[in-house]
């Protein structure tokens, strides 16, 4: 399954880019599985995605919980808690 990942704010600075097209292995089909997959990429990624930090996720512009299922072509955004207003 192919998704488009977006990173914002502190997370964008940590991973050092804002957009990435990712081909997911079979079995990585939920937000929680995707976070586990990303956490294996190295220290920076493990810090972000292994549960130590609060990382919010939006799929196709909608905030979602970690149990949400992914679909082909989804735009999946990762960002810290928002601070507008």
């Amino acid at each position: 399954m192919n998704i488009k990942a977006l990173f914002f704010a502190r997370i964008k600075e940590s991973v050092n880019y804002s957009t990435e097209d990712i081909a997911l292995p079979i079995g990585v089909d939920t937000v929680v599985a995707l976070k586990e997959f990303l956490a294996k990429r190295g220290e920076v990624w493990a810090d972000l995605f292994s549960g130590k930090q609060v990382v919010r996720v939006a799929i196709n512009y909608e905030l979602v919980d970690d149990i949400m299922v992914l679909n082909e072509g989804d735009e999946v955004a990762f960002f810290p808690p928002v601070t507008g207003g």
Partner: protein
Amino acid sequence: MTIRVQTEDFDAGAELAAMRVASASIGALVNFIGQVRDINDGDTVSTLTLEHYPGMTERSLEAIEAEAKARWDIVSSLIIHRVGTLQPLDQIVLVAVASAHRGEAFEACEFIMDYLKVQAPFWKKESTLVGERWVEAKTRDNDAQVRWKSKNN
């Protein structure tokens, strides 16, 4: 129901006047104007930079406005939120709600602000004498949103 996300400043007085005189069924116009403060968490702030998630920001604000309109009998609403680099005393945001009576306008305006604070994808980075830093989300903003879930109208 108007939403604008922009780098330019806005004329709050002109926006409010236009909204108010649009209908003589409006008896109450409640609004919130947010501005950049010069000190945050004890440090002097020289600039504040707002990043957002284009595409999601507008949808998020539209959903919040729609929820406010479903909950309260309001005539119109307006959200203007700036992005980019701002300085102390710069306006950040204007949220305005017009209704026949004041109760609805007060509640809906505060509701929109409380939801915007925890749902709309904006992030603030401030430049201070001790360097740049991302502004941390506040627990009290979550508390402010959560209380609406138990409110009946």
